[in-house]
């Protein structure tokens, strides 16, 4: 799992690439979100467009990231979801909880 961080219009965007699976991607995601929060980020967008796969541990990390950010009064949103990743979230009804946007422009605009 490779994660690159950038800024746009006050939002911290994490571009994720690879698998969010146990023992690798899940830890990388946790550390990246915690680092962003530690640096004071309150609006975090996860670019899921290049996520190849996710398992239940990765889903758990997405939930943990969401609660970590929102419990601090911040916002965490996901965009450009690959169909397989979106499907995994849909069948566990997490699409009713997590904020998922179509693309980056829509995700940035949603923070306004």
């Amino acid at each position, binding site marked *: 799992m490779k994660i690159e961080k950038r800024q746009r219009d006050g939002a911290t965007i994490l571009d994720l690439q690879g698998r969010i*699976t*146990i*023992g*690798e991607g899940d830890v990388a995601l946790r550390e990246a979100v915690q680092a962003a929060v530690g640096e004071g980020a309150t609006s975090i967008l996860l670019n899921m467009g290049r996520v190849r*796969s996710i*398992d*239940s*541990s990765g*889903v*758990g*990390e997405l*939930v*943990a990231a*969401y*609660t970590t950010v929102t419990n601090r009064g911040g916002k965490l949103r996901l965009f450009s979801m690959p*169909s*397989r990743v*979106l*499907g*995994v979230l*849909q*069948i*566990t*009804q*997490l699409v*009713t*909880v997590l904020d998922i946007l179509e693309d980056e422009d829509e995700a940035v605009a949603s923070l306004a």
Partner: protein
Amino acid sequence: MPEPVQQTIRLSIGSRYENIELVQAVLDETLESLPIDEETGYWMGIALREALTNAIKHGNGLDPEKKVDVCLAVDESGVDITVEDQGSGFDPDAVADPLAPDNLLRTEGRGIFYMRRFMDKIDYDFGAEGGTKVRLHKKFGAPGSSAEADQGGANED
């Protein structure tokens, strides 16, 4: 596609997450010659990874000295995958429903749900001297597994 060749592949791995990739690679290669489409094979892989994760993490407690035994068996009707750990067992019926409103934001507890969803059948066997064996079955020609179809419905076989 010709009739599937009956075969049985046995693996024994130490309880390390990186070994999941090894087993996944063996499954992927095995599926290449079978009448299972790429999408169904992908979801079978996710189910296998969940079974291995449970065995390594919850069963064997990440003790690298404890083994996880895997068997991939192909016959004329489908694929059976068994994953057996050396843990102390658990009660599958006591696992919380991940779709219950109070559980939606839990960070764990979805693995068995995904296994049930992506395979045609799963069942458990508990050894008299400990150890949990989970058996995952996929029939040839069954409707394709997908996370997109029938969204929100649990497959509680």
